[in-house]
């Protein structure tokens, strides 16, 4: 009749003793342990739409071009394309490919592989979400809609084995960014035809990047091994073990017990403590957090009310509370991107805000606290409603905004949260009749698809599906459209300044709060790692200098 606790204890000890001497997997300088965070939903470039999948794909596949993350303005540098020409006033892009790039099975990478990949993305049967990346290309949209069946009419062409040509509908200045997208990595038609959906399994996949996929245990771990056929400079790491540990505190424990070398997310509560160690790294991210205003719903249909709201927020207080090192901003285009202008947008100015409330037609009533009544109808200023998707940080922000607007402006706000998909549904649903939508304000963030301001500015055109503010301004629309195609940098920045001024000040359709910061931890023995605003991880640029006895 042994006691169970004793029994457990004995089992525990015997196993630990047994194992502590044996296979405590030896750390070498060849293998890096990395936490991906989650299972990549798909390693098929045409289907992947999330950052985790893309992180892996970027290490498996080399594209026409890529960003140099060591340059501050993220210069586009050649990869498989050794050079490119832009002709016909920016309408035709001709890429000349290297002829020494090999697939992992030894075959050469050709322009046809690119043509196949680009075609596959817009093929209706692929049903690729990111097909719209290519909608600037001649007839690409019609092909995707099934209106054109003949692919030769689409402006995507492999002229010969090493010349790949793209013809646009009309010139757009950001198009070169498209050539870096991992969604457009070259693909092998024969492999995909042979294996179908299973072609991304480690036994079947054929890639051309610095690493190859050799093992994939779903929801647990995948192994990248150095591609010895790689045409570029060989990386020092022979192997990268990527784990999919979702729970951040578990990942941190494993990091602290040397089971992981790099973690790319840190539990918020641990940040104040970890911040003091040299292993903690933080950097800004091309991503802006903003409050959207439902400009059709009273009382926010009055621009002066919106201006008043925008100028009574202390953003520093919010970012300090979040503790993540986010950078307060009053403008939309994020720090680190062309057109970033921190002077735009309203800053905290309570007197000005109250002035605007008066302009909006409200009378101030002094009591213990400020309150407002409409000067004609004498009705009190109504309670406004803010919705957010259920999440700790959003909750903190919502509660703080609630407190600040109450204190600074005397406006009462109700807050409500919804599960993510329900929330998206509410935002979409408000388009049918914004006046009666059950909310005045909402939160969203935007991650750059590519580091070009157009990616942010075109969100708020009157015809954008992503514009849930129901605001439209033809001047803003035309400025954004024009800036899209202008190649001259100063002119372009000037146009974006004007457009942002309309969006943030004249009409105040959104209130940006901060530029996201992201955190990572890596040990001293990890070399070559750097924070970058795209949160990219190129494993061929990393190496290890472990203290091995």
């Amino acid at each position, binding site marked *: 009749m042994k*006691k169970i606790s004793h*029994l457990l204890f004995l089992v525990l000890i015997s196993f630990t003793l*047994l*194992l502590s001497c044996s*296979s405590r997997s030896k750390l070498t300088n060849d293998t890096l342990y990395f936490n991906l965070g989650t299972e990549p939903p798909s390693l*098929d470039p045409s289907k992947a739409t999330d950052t985790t999948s893309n992180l892996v794909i970027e290490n498996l596949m080399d594209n026409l071009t890529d960003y140099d993350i060591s340059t501050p303005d993220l210069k586009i540098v050649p990869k498989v394309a050794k050079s490119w020409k832009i002709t016909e006033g920016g309408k035709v892009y001709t890429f000349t490919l290297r002829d020494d790039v090999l697939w992992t099975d030894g075959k050469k990478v050709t322009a046809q592989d690119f043509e196949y990949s680009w075609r596959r993305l817009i093929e209706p049967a692929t049903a690729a979400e990111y097909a*719209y990346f290519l909608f600037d290309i001649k007839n690409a949209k019609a092909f995707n809609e099934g209106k054109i069946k003949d692919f030769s009419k689409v402006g995507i062409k492999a002229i010969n084995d090493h010349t790949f040509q793209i013809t646009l509908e009309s010139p757009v200045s950001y198009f070169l960014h498209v050539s870096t997208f991992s969604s457009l990595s070259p693909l092998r038609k024969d492999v995909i035809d042979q294996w179908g959906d299973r072609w991304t399994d480690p036994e079947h996949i054929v890639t051309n990047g610095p690493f190859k996929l050799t093992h994939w245990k779903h929801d*647990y771990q995948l192994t990248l091994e150095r591609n010895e056929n790689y045409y570029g400079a060989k990386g020092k790491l022979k192997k990268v073990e990527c784990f999919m540990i979702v729970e951040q505190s578990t990942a941190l424990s494993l990091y602290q*017990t040397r089971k992981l070398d790099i973690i790319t997310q840190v539990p918020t509560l641990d940040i104040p403590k970890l911040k003091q160690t040299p292993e903690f790294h933080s950097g800004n991210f091309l991503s802006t957090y903003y409050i959207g205003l439902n400009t059709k719903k009273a009382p926010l249909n009055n621009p002066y009310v919106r201006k008043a709201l925008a100028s009574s927020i202390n953003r520093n207080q919010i970012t300090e509370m979040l503790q993540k090192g986010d950078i307060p901003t009053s403008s939309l285009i994020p720090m680190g991107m062309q057109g970033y202008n921190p002077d735009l947008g309203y800053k905290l100015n309570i007197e000005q805000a109250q002035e605007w409330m008066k302009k909006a037609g409200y009378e101030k009533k002094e009591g213990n606290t400020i309150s407002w009544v409409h000067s004609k109808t004498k009705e009190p200023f109504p309670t406004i409603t803010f919705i957010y998707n259920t999440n700790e940080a959003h909750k903190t922000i919502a509660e703080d905004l609630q407190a600040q607007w109450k204190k600074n402006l005397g406006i009462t706000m109700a807050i409500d949260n919804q599960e993510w998909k329900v929330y998206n549904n509410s935002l979409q649903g408000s388009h049918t009749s914004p006046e009666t939508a059950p909310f005045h304000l909402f939160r969203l963030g935007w991650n750059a698809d590519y580091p070009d301001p157009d990616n942010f500015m075109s969100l708020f055109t009157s015809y954008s*599906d992503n514009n849930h503010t129901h605001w439209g301004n033809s001047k803003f629309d035309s400025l954004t459209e024009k800036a899209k195609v202008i190649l001259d940098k100063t002119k372009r920045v000037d146009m974006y300044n004007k457009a942002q001024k309309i969006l943030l000040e004249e009409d105040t359709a959104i209130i940006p709060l901060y530029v996201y910061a992201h955190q990572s931890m890596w040990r001293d023995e990890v070399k070559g790692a750097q924070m970058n605003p795209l949160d990219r991880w190129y494993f061929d640029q990393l190496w290890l200098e472990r203290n091995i006895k």
Partner: protein
Amino acid sequence: MLLFILKRLFISIPVIFILATLTFCIMRVTPGGPFDKDKAIPPEIKANIEAKYHLDKPTFINTPAFYKKKWIHVLTETQYFYYMKGLAQGDLGPSYKYLGRSVTDIILDSLPVSVELGFYAALILAAYKHNTWIDNAAMFTAISGITLPSFLVAALLIYIFSIKMAWLPAGLWDGGWEYKILPTIALGLRPVAIIARLMRTSMLDVIKADYVRTARAKGLNEVWVILKHVVKNSLIPVITISGPLLAGIITGSFVIEHVFAIPGIAKHFILAVTNRDYTLIMGVTLVYAVLLIIANILVDVFYALVDPRIKLS
């Protein structure tokens, strides 16, 4: 006996069918779909995606077909019919989240891991059974299995054995026994606790029973009385709940698998819903139901073996 099992399996078919239909309905009234994101997808692309997964079809009744007088299409050209047709052929469909993977693949990848962990947890149970039944220390261990949420149990174990003592890894699954110990204890504690408590109550009941009194009066050896009459008969209520318990252990615990980063099936019970991965929701529901039904049949068979008063019918 075989007849009984076959009969029970046969009766279960309508249960599975109703369950599948019910799940299908609940899923469709849940707001948000598998491809809804914060980033708007252009309508033409959305149309392609919906066409690919038959999501462009009406859910249950195809009214346009009705007006076109294509009577048979009214019921067949629907999402429900497509799904049920696949299901009848044993095809659980493609996942809407893990593009390119089938639900069957996902279940086949993750279920064995949960079963393995469940097996270890069941070993604890067996060890417990053989060694003790009215032990106070065991009761106390058992009590913490019912009184603490499992994430607290996991946190406690990690804090003591991984952080403070640095004996065992704080997570991960592959690579040696050391990785299995903490999750096994964390998962096994609760069933052990439930069964220990149930045994206690049911033994108290049985000890008072007439036949035990008779056995004692006959002057039988006390140990014999306990083993032969008390333990055997108090097992009956334990067996009753062991069906759901077994199914529960096999399908794992979300918390344990999440905290220890174990690639089991339990996470899909939650993530499939947050992702609105319709086919995966259906898949895990059906897997759970089938496991439960099998476990219950086993329990009934076992029941009949332990208690001669019960006949399989």
